[in-house]
């Protein structure tokens, strides 16, 4: 569904992505992990058309994606739920959600309202706060709005940039469950970036590790979960701890 090949992106002189190659299949959850500054957000931004790649290709459903046409990319069915949620603080929860459908609202108002109900069924908690300004919600609630807003775009591929950032472990679990359900209910393909490596790998089908702009490990999520190197560096299960086990 999405094939990224030999992708190089710079921020000014900073060479951030150094020849990325990976492929996401229709209907799967693909997790990407990596330390701070590895280039994960830059990668998602490049796919979404915000950052200009220096070279390489991004092909989505057999069509190449080009830089700068963010609206076109949204219309094609790729939606980015950005880092730190970025909801519209001054707008109500309802408006936040509805604006997610901006690219199809004009032609398809009826199905937008149907999807609105469906998204609310997905996040029943939001039903009670539809008129509150997004900026006044808690972090977890805001994250639900951000994901719900993304769903309202009815994307084929949803990219989520650290949806669990700053959330309590219990809510992180909720969010992961929601992603799993999204995949099941809507058939949404998901590219998930997470610092919460274990939680991400548990729900993912495939995964990779991004390190300083390069993909260093790639494979089945279940295999990565067992990988010694990943256990050491990302899961925080040190040798000492394992000796105890």
């Amino acid at each position, binding site marked *: 569904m999405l094939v990224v090949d030999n992708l190089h992106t710079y921020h000014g002189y900073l060479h951030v992505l150094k020849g990325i190659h990976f492929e996401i299949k229709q209907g799967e959850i693909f997790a990407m992990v990596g330390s701070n500054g590895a280039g994960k957000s830059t990668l998602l931004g490049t796919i979404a058309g915000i950052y200009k790649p220096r070279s390489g290709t991004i092909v989505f459903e057999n069509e190449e994606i080009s830089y700068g046409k963010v609206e076109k990319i*949204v219309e094609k069915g790729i939606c980015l739920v*950005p880092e730190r949620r*970025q*909801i519209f603080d001054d707008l109500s929860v309802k408006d936040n959600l509805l*604006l997610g459908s*901006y*690219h199809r609202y004009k032609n398809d108002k009826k199905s937008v309202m149907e999807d609105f109900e469906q998204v609310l069924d997905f996040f029943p908690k939001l039903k009670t706060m539809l008129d509150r300004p997004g900026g006044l919600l808690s972090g977890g609630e805001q994250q639900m709005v951000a994901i719900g807003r993304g769903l309202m775009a009815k994307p084929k591929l949803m990219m989520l940039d650290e949806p669990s950032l700053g959330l309590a472990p219990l809510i992180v679990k909720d969010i992961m469950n929601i992603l799993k359900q999204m995949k099941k209910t809507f058939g949404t393909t998901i590219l998930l970036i997470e610092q919460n490596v274990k939680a991400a790998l548990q729900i993912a089908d495939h995964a990779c590790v991004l390190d300083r702009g390069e993909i260093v490990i790639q494979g089945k999520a279940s295999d990565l979960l067992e990988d010694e190197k990943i256990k050491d560096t990302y899961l925080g299960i040190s040798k000492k701890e394992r000796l105890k086990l």
Partner: protein
Amino acid sequence: MELTSQFIQLIFSGLTIGSIYALIAIGFVIIYNITGLLNLAQGDFAMLGALTCISFVNMGFPLIIAIAVSVVIVTIIGGLFERLAIYPARNSSTATLLIITIGAAFVFRGISILIWGTQPLALRPFSGNQNINFLDATIQPQSLWAIGISLLSLAVLYYFFNKTYLGKAVTACVVNRFAARLMGISPQKMSFWAVSISAGLGALAGIVIAPISGASYDMGIMIGLKAFIAAVIGGLSNAPAAIAGAFLIGILESFTEGYLSSGYKDAISFTLLLIVLFFMPNGLFSKVSGKRV
């Protein structure tokens, strides 16, 4: 009695000019928030609107038609200005864009000298010259038109931004341009609409004030400047505060003119601007938290 009637009269003339500033100040705020651009040609839309309307009236069109057509024409001029001058330079620095708008202002003034000359022209009041007596104060009916039309426009704008889907999309652009882009809202499209609508509002303001102050090629300079001050003392990103700023300046000017001398009228606005910029750089009405509204 003499004192109160003068007071009421000054209040009314302050509200009148304030409502004109408000229409133009809103234009500043809308454009600034969506594009980050300070459009210094904003006042010249008022000039273009007023002069175009006068021409149509002189051609024999009914006033209401002349007003409507002039507003539409200036709205289109605003749209063209955005596409031809601002859009191509959208990735340039703020200073470059600022200079482009100054350049555009000179172009507008130059063209209007060619068409209408340098002599001020008059537009007849919308509903006669019969002054209204209110608590011993004489009020020009045109004042009521000015205040009424600008309040109505502000109400329509409020409705648009708060109740319609497109208006909310524009607001989203203002609140978080980055996220708006990710939702497929194109800031460039919004910029086009913002400049067009602001131009139309400016035209309306110019037309409404023309029967009181006359219209000439350079009328946009002072009106634009005062509206700009209103927007700045309102904090530039806050539409209601800009409107409040506009009325404040209008009333301040009218009182200075009435109780001191008209010579101090302009000085007082600039003094206010300096004071606000000095002590409250986020605007007169900014909350302590500094959150943008």
